[in-house]
C-alpha cells in the first residue's frame, strides 16, 4: 500500500463513523406526501377530462360522418368488380 493509498483508507474509515444530525422530518415528509397526492389527483382529473372531451369530440365527428359515408360509393367497388370479371 502506498502512502496516499494508506492515508486515503484511513480517512475513509474515519469518515464512515460520521452520521447525520438528529432531526425529525416526519411532519415535513407527511405534508409533502399529502401535497403530492393532491397534485397527482389534480393531474389525473385533468387527464380524465381531456380523455372524456376527446371521446365526446370523436363520437360527434363519427355521428356527423355516418350519412356522408353511407352516401359515398365504396372506393373499392370498382376494383372488386374488375377482379371478379377477370376471375370469371
Amino acid at each position, binding site marked *: 500500500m502506498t502512502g*496516499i493509498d494508506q*492515508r486515503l483508507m484511513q*480517512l475513509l474509515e474515519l469518515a464512515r463513523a*460520521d452520521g*447525520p444530525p438528529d432531526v425529525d*422530518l*416526519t411532519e*415535513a*415528509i407527511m405534508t409533502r*406526501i399529502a401535497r403530492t397526492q393532491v397534485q397527482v389527483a389534480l393531474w389525473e382529473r385533468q387527464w380524465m377530462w381531456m380523455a372524456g372531451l376527446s371521446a365526446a369530440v370523436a363520437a360527434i365527428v363519427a355521428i356527423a360522418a355516418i350519412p356522408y359515408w353511407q352516401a359515398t360509393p365504396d372506393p373499392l367497388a370498382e376494383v372488386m368488380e374488375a377482379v371478379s370479371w377477370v376471375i370469371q
Partner: protein
Amino acid sequence: MQTAADRLAKDRIDEDLADVKASLGGDPAAFRRIVERYQGHVCRILWRFTRDLEVHAELVQEAFVQAYLSLNGFRAEAGLEHWLATVATRVGYRHWRQTARHKALAEIQACRQQWPPGPVEELGAAEAAELVHRLLARLSPRDRLVLTLRYLEGLSVQETSRRTGWTATMVKVQTLRARRRLEALLRSMEKETP
C-alpha cells in the same frame, strides 16, 4: 431453532408488510409508521450524498415521496429496509448528477485548501467525512457512488450490486477504476501543493 433476534426480524417484516398494505389502501397513518421506523436509516444513507442540512432534508423527503408513489412496485422478498435504501440511493445519485456540473469548481477550490490533511489520526469523524465528501465530489457521479457505497456505507460487492442494479463484475471493475482515479487525483494535488 428460532432465536429472539429471528423472531424480532420476523415481527418487523410482518409489521412492514401490514403497513405497506394499509398504505396502498390509502391509510396515511400506516405510511407515517413506515417513515418513523426508517427515517434514521434513510437519513444516514443520504448524509453520504450531501452535507448541506437543507439539501439533506429535501433529499430525505424526496426519497419518501418516491417510495410512497412507487409502493406498488415493492416486493416483499426484498425487505422494506433494503427497498427504501435503494430508493434513497437513487434519489441521492440523481442529485449528484444534477448538481455535478455546478458544484465541481467550488469543490475543487475547497478541496485544494484541505489536501494533504496532515496526520489523519488527528481528524474527527465529521472533519474526515467533510474532506472525503469534497474529494469524492471531484470524481464522476458513477465513481463517487461506488466508492461511497463500498467504503463509506461499508457494503459488500453483492450488496452494492443489489443497491445499484449493476452486476457484481461491474461493481468490482468500477470500484477499482474509481479508486485509481481518486489516488491519481490525490497524487496530483500533493504535487500542486507547495
